[in-house]
């Protein structure tokens, strides 16, 4: 267990030890894990040689099956076999408009403000838990292939995912025991893989149609800098919708032929959906597809779907991708002739009529020289390798943006935008508010995400109350609310009353997310039943975190300690390190956490000095042309 090794005071661990870091594409239909080995980004296979892990989880009484085996069982056990769980991440039950067609037993969890759960024979499962089961499988695959414990992972999310969906993804990773280095937008990951592979320079469009989500991102690639200019999309549009159109068509055909056709049961629904997906894939290379199967009531389905019919059935879905595409182009203030290339990502972009539509829109043939299923994971692995510190970081810089505007509810249910969409991350904005009644001492703040003017048309992210405002005349108080979106695209909000300094710091947990207690409970549950196991696991986590902290601070001291700190200051930090190291030998996880916080606090001035030095270093002594990234 390399992670548990604590080095002697003053001795830092081997600086150039290769860290095991992976990129994970947690997809709607399939998931993948990739890593950089000998400088090459490679997808890792399971013991049967499969690269793609179907994002399907089947719950048995006391076992969880993930992947191909679960997929094979989906028609016979549809209620306990969850596919496309990504569509439910960070969503409430009322968000799932087509749930009548989905064979699951959805439950609304009262304690989590409407977060949806699925009733299985193994109990209620939240989308976060189901996704964590997929991630655990990928983690095990990677650790087996790489022969060690993972240092960290970059996990991709659709660029158009909102804060609730991102937070849910991060929670799932945590539940799976993964250290998240970064949440990375899928099209940005694809651009990294494509751009580095082809030494691309200029403006590129990534058209990413996955199983359940659509993203369009426009990036400028220049000397290792990937700058996202605009992004748009639809987080509820993907290949699944094409399957569904075929499914509905088959049902119409069958119904028109037999008048007494009964509604489908869950098994038949799943069977026909699977047949529909197979037909869609078949039509990529063939003129017509036969959809033949026997339903559980004995009725025989035998239909033939031609390419022309399929195109007619799904043309509106293709057109639906072009509206976000136009918006992104407009936001980036670009015309078609400024686009150097269009990269297709996602299995659904194999459909010829998608390719034709993209080609017609951009007036150029799209680039398809990378496997659309793997390119996202490959890009994520490259980023993970850089973030883990295996490669000197200045060769790659990703400047990503926030896909949706953030705002606050104002009088009359209107949205006041605070951070506009397509702002480069990280970003912070402050907004001042005042009271509207004499003597008002509290203020409700409602944070929403979206582009529409009415609060009711946007997604509610969080509600909180700022209390303790000193009583003043209406309009006299000045409350400054600061929004900070970090490099993962996650929001935190703080509020401060300017006249007396009352502060409320809130890490926004989305209204439809899990709260900290729920996560902790889930983590504890997964630690095992015995109380001592839990304590041991908590201690282990605290020690691993402490070790990570000490390692980081020792690296900083080795780099800048001599130049930026006096002997006294250095000794103070060392004292804290020694105290923490001593506690790591003990059994008190709480004490380890407290000493870690104290150590971190003791390095704050040093951190500020280091940052000033970084800024100086960035611009000093280099002339502008020598910028080699």
């Amino acid at each position: 267990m390399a992670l548990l090794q604590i080095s002697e005071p003053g001795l830092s661990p081997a600086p150039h030890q290769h860290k095991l870091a992976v990129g994970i594409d947690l997809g709607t239909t399939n998931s993948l894990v990739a890593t950089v080995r000998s400088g090459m980004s490679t997808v890792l296979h399971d013991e049967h040689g499969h690269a793609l892990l179907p994002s399907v989880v089947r719950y048995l009484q006391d076992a969880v099956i993930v992947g191909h085996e679960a997929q094979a069982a989906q028609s016979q056990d549809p209620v306990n076999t969850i596919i496309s769980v990504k569509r439910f991440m960070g969503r409430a039950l009322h968000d799932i408009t087509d749930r009548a067609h989905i064979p699951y037993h959805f439950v609304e969890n009262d304690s989590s403000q409407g977060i949806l759960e699925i009733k299985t024979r193994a109990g209620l499962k939240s989308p976060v838990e189901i996704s964590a089961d997929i991630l655990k499988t990928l983690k095990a695959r990677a650790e087996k292939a790489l022969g060690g414990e993972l240092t960290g992972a970059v996990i991709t999310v659709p660029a158009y995912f909102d804060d609730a969906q991102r937070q849910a993804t991060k929670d799932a990773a945590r539940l799976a025991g993964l250290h998240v280095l970064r949440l990375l937008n899928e099209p940005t990951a694809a651009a990294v893989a494509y751009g580095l592979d082809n030494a691309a320079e200029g403006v590129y469009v990534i058209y990413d149609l996955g199983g359940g989500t659509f993203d369009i991102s426009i990036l400028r690639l220049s000397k290792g800098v990937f700058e996202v200019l605009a992004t748009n999309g639809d987080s509820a549009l993907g290949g699944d919708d094409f399957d569904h159109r075929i499914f509905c068509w088959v049902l119409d055909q069958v119904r028109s032929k037999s008048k007494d056709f009964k509604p489908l049961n869950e098994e038949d629904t799943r069977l026909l959906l699977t047949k529909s997906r197979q037909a869609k894939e078949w039509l990529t290379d063939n003129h017509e597809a036969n959809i033949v199967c026997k339903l559980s009531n004995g009725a025989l389905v035998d239909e033939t779907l031609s390419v022309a019919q399929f195109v007619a059935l799904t043309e509106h879905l293709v057109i639906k991708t072009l509206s976000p595409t136009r918006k992104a182009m407009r936001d980036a203030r670009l015309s078609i002739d400024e686009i150097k290339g269009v990269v297709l990502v996602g299995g659904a972009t194999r459909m010829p009529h998608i390719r034709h539509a993209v080609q017609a829109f951009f007036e150029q043939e799209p680039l398809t020289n990378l496997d659309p299923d793997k390119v996202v994971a490959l890009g994520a692995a490259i980023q993970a390798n850089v973030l883990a510190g295996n490669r000197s970081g200045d060769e790659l810089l990703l400047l990503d943006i926030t896909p949706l505007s953030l705002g606050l509810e104002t009088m009359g249910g209107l949205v006041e935008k605070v951070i506009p969409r397509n702002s480069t991350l990280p970003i912070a904005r402050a907004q001042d508010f005042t009271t509207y009644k004499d003597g008002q001492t509290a203020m409700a703040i409602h944070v929403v995400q979206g582009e529409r003017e009415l609060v009711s048309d946007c997604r509610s992210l969080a509600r909180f109350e700022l209390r303790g405002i000193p009583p003043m005349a209406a309009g006299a108080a000045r409350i400054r609310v600061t929004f900070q979106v970090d490099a993962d695209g996650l929001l935190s909000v703080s509020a401060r009353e300017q006249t007396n300094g009352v502060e409320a710091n809130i890490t926004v947990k989305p209204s439809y997310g899990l709260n900290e207690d729920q996560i902790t409970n889930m983590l504890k549950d997964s630690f095992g039943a015995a109380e001592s196991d839990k304590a041991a696991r908590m201690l282990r986590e605290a020690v691993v975190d402490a070790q990570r902290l000490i390692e980081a601070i020792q690296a900083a001291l080795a780099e800048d300690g001599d130049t930026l700190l006096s002997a006294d200051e250095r000794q103070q930090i060392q004292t804290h390190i020694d105290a923490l190291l001593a506690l790591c030998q003990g059994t008190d996880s709480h004490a380890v956490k407290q000493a870690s916080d104290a150590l971190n606090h003791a390095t704050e001035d040093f951190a500020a000095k280091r940052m000033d030095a970084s800024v100086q270093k960035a611009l000093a002594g280099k002339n502008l042309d020598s910028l080699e990234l």
Partner: protein
Amino acid sequence: MQNYFALFQLPQQFELDLTVLDGQYRKLQAEVHPDKFVNASPADRMQSMQMATLVNEAYQALKQPTSRARYLLQLQGIATDEENNTAMPGDFLMAQMEWREAMDDARVGKDIPALDALLKEMRIQAKTLQQRVANEIVAAPTQAALTVRKLRFIDKVSEDVNQLIAQLED
């Protein structure tokens, strides 16, 4: 608060070579971006996020001509006060009304080419005002504040036209 021009080591003036600004911005982010501090201590990560945020904010403020002019005036202690001061000379008010009417006509007639023409007109108007404000900032700062308010208005019309085009295209 740190001076944005000083941050990028650029002369404090309206005329600005955008390629130089881009280069300085990228060099700074290459050092301070949170991706460079993933394995660092929480204190270092906090510093990185704050500095990268400041660099982004400074870049946006200097990149756009209107906000750059506004910032230069702010450094001189002159508020442009766009939210509250909406007083405009008569000829500009007339022009405003004509642009708004052109937008309304295009909305009714779903006339996207007319909106594109209006956008082009806004670009020309903005260019003229930008040339003017460059001199005014040095020679007549109070006058420059009015020009910034005009520029803000033209930016707003352009945003609205873009939004209308997006609506009509859907």
